[in-house]
């Protein structure tokens, strides 16, 4: 331990608290995973490596404060009786905020919804991302334009894309989908009433498929052509080429996509607020949205902070799980 540089100890410190924000989460997964991935970077290869701790200290220290202050405040508030509508309610609450939340059915439903949303969007983006990456790797007329179009949804703000989907596409009266099904005599689906979660998943997937496609398309370009030719000479065609050569090659970039997307998908908010506002009932209330409900509709800062802390724990459980499977893969 004597040879451990200062920065390493700092990183250790930084990893322990893990969480900074009050009402949003998701970034915690990033901070902790980066700390783990970055771990090896700072580790000296041999004893002759110079000590860089003192030089890193200002930057690391600033980041530490940046993270630790909001985290401490969140923790502090979560143990307070604190409602913005009623200044007379105050004082130390003990574990009451947590107790109330954990006994509150909506919390468990929202955790379930979060996992369903993240899981479904991840699978959709990976499947379509791989598909687009493979298709757009073939040379055809207008490929560059097609590639640009596939990437385009990523440039649309979440709020705007949610509005477009809500009012122009999925609307039961004015929407394109309704017009198509009605023209075919099939009747109309009221998306946000009949299949609210599926609708949100479709919108978020539409936004994130470009990201997966972009990463996987660039990965396809690094696939060794001689390797494909060798496989071709070995008799691999179409599906067997995809299964034995392309997919294994994409495995690592897929891991990266899963890791990065999970961080952002845990924090999906605008799409829900704009379309369903967490409803009908609590069918589309995710943990992020629940925190918003608590904090800015019920003005219950104490309860929202407690939900935030639970979100931090959930994000870190997911992050730890991901890092165990994905980061090992990356290091391989």
């Amino acid at each position: 331990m004597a040879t451990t540089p200062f920065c390493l100890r700092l990183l250790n410190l930084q990893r322990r608290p893990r969480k900074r924000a009050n009402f949003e989460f998701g970034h915690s997964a990033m901070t902790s995973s980066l700390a783990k991935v970055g771990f090896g970077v700072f580790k000296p290869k041999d004893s002759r490596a110079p000590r860089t701790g003192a030089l890193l200290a200002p930057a690391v220290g600033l980041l530490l404060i940046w993270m630790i202050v909001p985290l401490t405040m969140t923790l502090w508030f979560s143990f307070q009786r604190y409602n913005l509508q009623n200044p007379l309610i105050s004082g130390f609450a003990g574990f009451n905020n947590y107790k109330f939340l954990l006994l509150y059915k909506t919390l468990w439903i929202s955790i379930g919804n979060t996992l369903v949303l993240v899981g479904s969007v991840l699978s959709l983006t990976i499947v379509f991302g791989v598909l687009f990456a493979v298709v757009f790797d073939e040379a055809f007329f207008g490929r560059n334009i097609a590639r640009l179009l596939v990437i385009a949804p990523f440039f649309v703000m979440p709020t705007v894309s949610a509005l477009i989907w809500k009012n122009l596409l999925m609307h039961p009266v004015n929407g394109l989908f309704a017009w198509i099904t009605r023209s075919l005599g099939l009747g109309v689906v009221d998306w946000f009433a009949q299949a609210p979660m599926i609708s949100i998943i479709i919108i978020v997937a539409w936004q994130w498929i470009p990201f997966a496609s972009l990463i996987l398309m660039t990965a396809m370009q690094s696939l060794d052509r001689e390797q494909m030719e060798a496989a071709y000479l070995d008799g691999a065609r179409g599906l067997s080429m995809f299964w034995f050569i392309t997919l294994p090659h994409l495995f690592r970039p897929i891991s990266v996509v899963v890791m990065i997307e999970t961080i952002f998908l845990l924090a999906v908010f605008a799409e829900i607020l704009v379309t369903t506002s967490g409803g009908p009932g609590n069918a589309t209330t995710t943990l992020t949205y629940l925190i918003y409900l608590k904090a800015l509709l019920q003005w219950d800062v104490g309860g929202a902070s407690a939900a935030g802390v639970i979100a931090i724990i959930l994000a870190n459980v997911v992050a730890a799980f991901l890092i165990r499977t994905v980061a090992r893969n990356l290091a391989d």
Partner: protein
Amino acid sequence: MAQLSLRNVAKSFGTVNIIKDLNLEIADRELCVFVGPSGCGKSTLLRMIAGLEEITSGDLMIDGERVNDVPPDVRGLAMVFQSYALYPHMTVRDNMAFALRLAGVSRQERYARIDKVADLLQLRPYLDRRPKALSGGQRQRVAIGRAIVREPKVFLFDEPLSNLDAALRVQTRIELARLHERLNATMIYVTHDQVEAMTLADKIVVLRDGHIEQVGSPLELYHHPCNRFVAGFIGSPKMNFCSVKVKAPSSSGVSIDLPGGASMVAPVAATRLKEGEPLILGVRPEHMKVIGPAGDGPITFSGEVMVVERLGGQTFLYVQATPEDLFIIAVDGDSLVKVHDRVALGFAPKECHLFDHGGTALEQLARHPLAA
């Protein structure tokens, strides 16, 4: 195992003709080497044989059967790539098993065949490793092993040694030669390395701009190049050239005037030459000698030594033999010649090559015993 022939084969990309109307026969169990400067089409030709490039016109025959439209894996060929092109996510065993697996060979037979090949190439200890965990030479052996496992009719090698360091290249070259002998296989080998071509080949095909300049055994190309390009391409350092004039043609050779004022009789077929006709004289560096003051031979050139390169065993002198021509002369490593010395040069008439103004070699009257 297999005999291969190319008949009027051509390849063009759009309007650019890469391979032009090429005819070539490769006999069973022959090791045929394609050489040529970069861009001459040697790799394209190999890829056409492999089936990676379509043949624009002409016939590719393997054992008398036209295979132009036969998919590569059915042609019965196996190729070793320059970058080895091993599958990075598979173990050595799976790499070698891949083709057999796709062909539906049973696991038991696959493993039996791999074990046999692994013993041949001393790859046994590495079978469960990934390519990443192997050295360059071991990867090279895996790539060769992957080809052997398929028991192909013809092996194709695309510059297989160019990614290896010098020492390993020599060692692998020797291993390849022994492998060729043991497997008794037909092999086609593309390289730009002369030493590989000269040492490995039964037959060398010299290509330039998509057509064949000359086909022959290594020593045939060395001693009897059919034109100036082949003469300059084969042999290292390069053959020296200078312009000369015909003095008097005769049936026993041709008497020529050298630029320095000397003259000599070259034993080549000279019946169609006229007096005063310009020719090009070619002499290899290793056939030129520095002639001492005692005079052990006729002096043909003399000039100032501009550069001396001492390699230890051998020394290369760069001599300004004529105002235009800098000759390279290979002399013994113990030679005492220094820079700016004036030296006299000589060579045996039978070692000289003459080319007409079009670059075609005049046929030598006596064939070299090793290139008969």
